[in-house]
């Protein structure tokens, strides 16, 4: 194999040597939660509505992300190129938040969910249930990405520090809800089990009281659900809910 000097890389040669911008982006440490967005989606201006406010030179950035231009052949200053690269990553993140709410995007995220790319719930009673990424806000630069567990319905901090710098807006506040709405098979059995601290075998009074109150809230929920024709099924490891079968054919 003849090697080509780096400065001769041209994107439209479509050889194996070419490194696509998106592949490089996904390979950066900390970007493990992102899926790859179809070029078609990025190139469709409709999907970028409103994003021109967030980054400047939108067209240039789109070209960069989709490998229509190559920054290595660029004669702009290093500083300038660094800013452009940074903006391209921001843009990719913001498009990503929209993309993962589409059917194509959800499918890609479902595959990542199934392989545990987002990690597993650290809660003992969740028994390593796979997590989903979530933003606390859809606005960029508000909060870093968090993880949602559909079993305990709670938010967790990512385990690794490298995810603490990933903007939550790149995943968005709505993603897990949209995901579970579309993949109801991903809704897990919920455990009723709670933990109450003990002293020499005996449950601590104050904590038992709180635990009882929480169990009461659960029983009240079950009552409300039954009235709304939602079935509560006790299954191994907890309970799940289903729509009551309507009578007749």
């Amino acid at each position: 194999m003849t090697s080509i000097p780096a400065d001769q890389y041209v994107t439209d040669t479509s050889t194996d040597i070419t490194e696509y911008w998106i592949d490089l982006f996904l390979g950066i440490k900390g970007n493990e939660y992102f899926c790859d967005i179809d070029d078609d989606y990025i190139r469709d201006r409709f999907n970028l509505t409103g994003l021109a406010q967030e980054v400047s030179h939108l067209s240039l950035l789109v070209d960069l992300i989709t490998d229509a231009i190559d920054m290595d052949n660029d004669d702009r200053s290093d500083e300038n190129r660094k800013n452009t690269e940074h903006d391209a990553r921001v843009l990719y993140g913001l498009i990503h938040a929209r993309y993962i709410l589409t059917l194509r995007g959800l499918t890609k995220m479902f595959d990542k969910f199934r392989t545990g790319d987002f990690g597993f719930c650290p809660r003992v009673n969740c028994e390593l249930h796979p997590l989903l990424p979530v933003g606390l806000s859809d606005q960029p630069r508000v909060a870093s990405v968090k993880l949602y567990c559909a079993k305990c319905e709670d938010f967790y901090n990512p385990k690794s520090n490298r995810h603490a710098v990933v903007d939550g807006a790149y995943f968005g506040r709505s993603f897990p809800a949209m995901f579970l709405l579309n993949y109801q098979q991903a809704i897990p059995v919920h455990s009723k089990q709670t933990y109450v601290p003990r002293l020499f075998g005996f449950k601590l009074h104050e904590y038992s009281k709180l635990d009882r109150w929480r169990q009461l809230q659960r029983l009240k929920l079950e009552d409300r659900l039954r009235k709304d024709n939602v079935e509560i099924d006790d299954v191994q490891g907890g309970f799940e809910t289903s729509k009551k079968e309507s009578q007749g054919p």
Partner: protein
Amino acid sequence: MASEGEEDYVPWIRQFCKLFGHDYFVAVSHEFIEDDFNLTGLSSQVPYYKEALYTLLDYQVDTIEDVKNGGDSNNKNNNNTKPGKPKHELPNRVILDSSAELLYGLIHARYIVTKAGLTEMAGKFERNEFGSCPRYYCDSMHLIPVGPLDISGQETVRLYCPCCNDTYVPQSLRFLNIDGAFFGTTFPGLLVQMFPEIENQCRIRLNKYKNEEFGLRLFGFRINEKSMSGPRVKWLRAVPETADEIAEYDKCELRLPWGEGDDADEEIEDDEEDDDDKTMASE
């Protein structure tokens, strides 16, 4: 074999606490270990109990290997002079090491529920040496090690968060083979009772977020309970907030105030039965 009086000699206990994954342990004082009362019942749980005890108190203990080596080389004159046990009753090095670790762990679980041990562990808690709660709304509350059981060899160490009242698997793999019984079921409850400041720290965090803030949103809206993907475990993290809820909470003092002779009654009895089973199991 390390000869005695060497300057870089590290006492067994200090060495144990420095081992990979042993970050949660404190050093138990020799004084505590030398008091027979504190060791009541342990001799039947640990193979080669006496040898293990001497090991962690830094006495020289002969193993099968020592006797063999001692016999081979004449340079060591001290090795075989002790009127020790017959060779076939000596432990081998590997068994002795694991016995000593088991014994130390069991003593450790007892030590950290004494005043001295609790104080030392409180220091580690304050310095966040057990890590922070991974739950976002717990705002990096410090965690407390806990054993699901007091019987050794069953479950690994977990971490209790006094803010969300839940237990977590340690984040680092290094703790995944540390026996939970070496910390025990009682420790977190006792720590929280003895240091009320911990509950204050939790209260500040609990007041920071309201129950309503938890849970998923879809384009700004909460998911309806009736929806199949609606919330099902909100109760797990709920805290009484409104006057009604507080009144309801007060009714939970001694029993679950639910159901007067209808179907729901059975369910509660079941729950309580489960509870009793758990209590028995952990004793």
